[in-house]
């Protein structure tokens, strides 16, 4: 019973971080209709940038969160024109081209990271590492808990931005009907750039927390790429509120499979669930996807 409760808590806490990775990704898909295969690479680059910042300037990794957000926001802003080029213009299948382009980007980022840092595994420690809250028989690791809080905070901020501000409403309108939004005077290209930069910023920022929680290595992107994909499929592609439920479900699934079946069956279990979802309700568990 204690193990069960502990696994439950761990799963929920991890779910918080999965939500952060999934939410930007889902937003990006909703607006641009592009699956960004580089999502895991943004996490990886975020983790490495955080690691470099910490090793050069010292201080606690947590204070670099806003710095990372700015760095990756700018990076996303810089890369977006290329993606826009790939998905527009005189190509006879823009979506296909966009997919392949981000696929190429992810290989490029992974290759670059492997060439620079090799297969070494790095880690970041913060003042929260190793501390934990004890709640009766269960312990809540402070770092995981702060990761969870961070996830919730980012999600709330994004939701507030999307549902309460004028810019956010413009973004949602673009996601709903691109052509209509552009007819009504929205600069679709600028909205896309903003969304992509936001997504890159949030995902890169989550990288440092993920790096502090687990470990940092050049091939870590694959795992988060998989998680982001599963989250959006479960949530329904492009349906943002679904990401919260899907992220928590995936966190729970991961931790329960890890404890009761074995960590190496993780991906198999995740794939089975995704296959089942695609087979039964392809629009996500809430049937709200596009």
């Amino acid at each position, binding site marked *: 019973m204690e193990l069960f409760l502990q696994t439950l808590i761990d799963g929920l806490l991890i779910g918080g971080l999965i939500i952060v990775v999934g939410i930007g990704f889902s937003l990006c*898909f909703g607006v641009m*209709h*592009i*699956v960004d*295969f580089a999502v895991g690479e943004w996490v990886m680059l975020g983790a490495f940038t955080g690691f470099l910042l910490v090793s050069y300037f010292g201080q606690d990794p947590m204070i670099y969160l806003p710095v990372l957000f700015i760095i990756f926001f700018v990076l996303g802003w810089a890369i977006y024109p*290329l993606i826009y*080029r*790939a998905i527009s*213009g*005189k*190509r*006879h*299948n823009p*979506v*296909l*081209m966009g*997919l*392949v*382009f981000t*696929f*190429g*980007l*992810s*290989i*490029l*980022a*992974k*290759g*670059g990271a*492997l*060439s620079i840092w*090799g297969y070494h595994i790095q880690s970041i420690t913060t003042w929260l590492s190793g501390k934990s809250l004890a709640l009766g028989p269960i312990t809540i690791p402070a770092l995981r808990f702060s990761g969870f809080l961070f996830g919730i905070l980012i999600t709330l901020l994004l939701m507030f931005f999307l549902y309460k501000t004028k810019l956010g409403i413009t973004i949602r309108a673009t996601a709903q009907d691109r052509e209509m939004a552009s007819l009504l005077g929205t600069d679709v290209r600028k909205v896309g750039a903003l969304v992509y930069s936001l997504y890159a910023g949030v995902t890169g920022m989550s990288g440092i927390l993920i790096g502090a929680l687990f470990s940092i290595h050049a091939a870590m992107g*694959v795992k988060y*790429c*998989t998680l982001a*994909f*599963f989250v*959006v*499929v479960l949530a329904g*592609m492009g349906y943002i509120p679904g990401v919260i439920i899907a992220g928590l479900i995936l966190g729970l699934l991961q931790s329960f499979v890890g404890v009761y079946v074995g960590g*190496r*069956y*993780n*991906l*198999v279990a*995740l*794939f089975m669930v*995704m*296959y089942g979802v*695609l*087979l039964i309700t*392809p629009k996500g568990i809430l049937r709200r996807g596009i």
Partner: protein
Amino acid sequence: MKSLKNAQTPAHSSPSFLRWGLLGLVLLISLLLPWTLSPLWIRIATEVLMWAGLAQSWNIIGGYTGYLSFGHGAFFGVGAYITGITMLHLGLPFGLGLLISGMAAALMAVIIGYPTLRLRGAYFAIATWAFGEMIRQIATILEITGGAFGMQLPAYLNLPFFYYLFLLMTGLIYLTIYLLLERSPFGYKLLAIREHEEAAEMVGVDTVMIKIKAFGLSAFFPGVLGGIYAYWVTYIHPDSVLGAVITDFMVVMAFLGGIGSLWGPFLGAGVVQLVNRYLWLVWGEGTFYLIVIGAAICAVVLFIPSGIIGLLESQIFQPRTAWKEIRKKVKW
């Protein structure tokens, strides 16, 4: 309208006797090749042939149908492992093992394709990518595959034999594509799906069925090629036959050569594999080639989306029209 105008159709501009003569010459040269080359170059030629087959089988679903499979390497690996298992544990002959490998790969493709091919292409891309990752993990878990240590097949060290086997198989693949996709209603249905899926459905194409068939076909060939590869290198492990890099190579080769064309993947495979081997000879083992692949994919998508074959088929080599053609083909 725009998409229809830019649809790629096979060019029939050059006289046919020239094309058949050229094809005959290439075949003759490739038949005589093992007598003239050193073992290293026979090896490289064999690899080029294998990759040409792999890139073309990816092209069936990615190029002709317009659905991107980012887990195609899994079919190659599955073929390699199943051939190994049938030869080692079941004691079946090599040829039968190859057939079973191909069938198994095609069956897996049908199972993956059944739910995902009725959705948007993005779902398919995600599901195939995840499938590839899952298969690699399964191969490291199972006992019958030898786990992370891999599997040792009975050794048969006969390089020319494998060269001819790959030549035969790749030749068969190209023949199948030519007959089935370039010259039959099946191919036209696939093109219709790629260009405008709703319209294809409207005129009575059973799109889901056609796509599943195409995916099955495009998985059958890598299964067989994987089997031959396993017998050739005799030692396989999850990273060597199921690594993500196999899919990466297929995608870059097909795209660089020109997707949705018969000879594009062949050209792409030749160029990419020769450059890859050159880098390998100069720098040795490393991860630098990943940067080159990634940059190549991005550059091709951005600047020459119709690939090398698109450049060759245009009038780029005639001085008067060259500049106009470059302006048209190289997107800036």
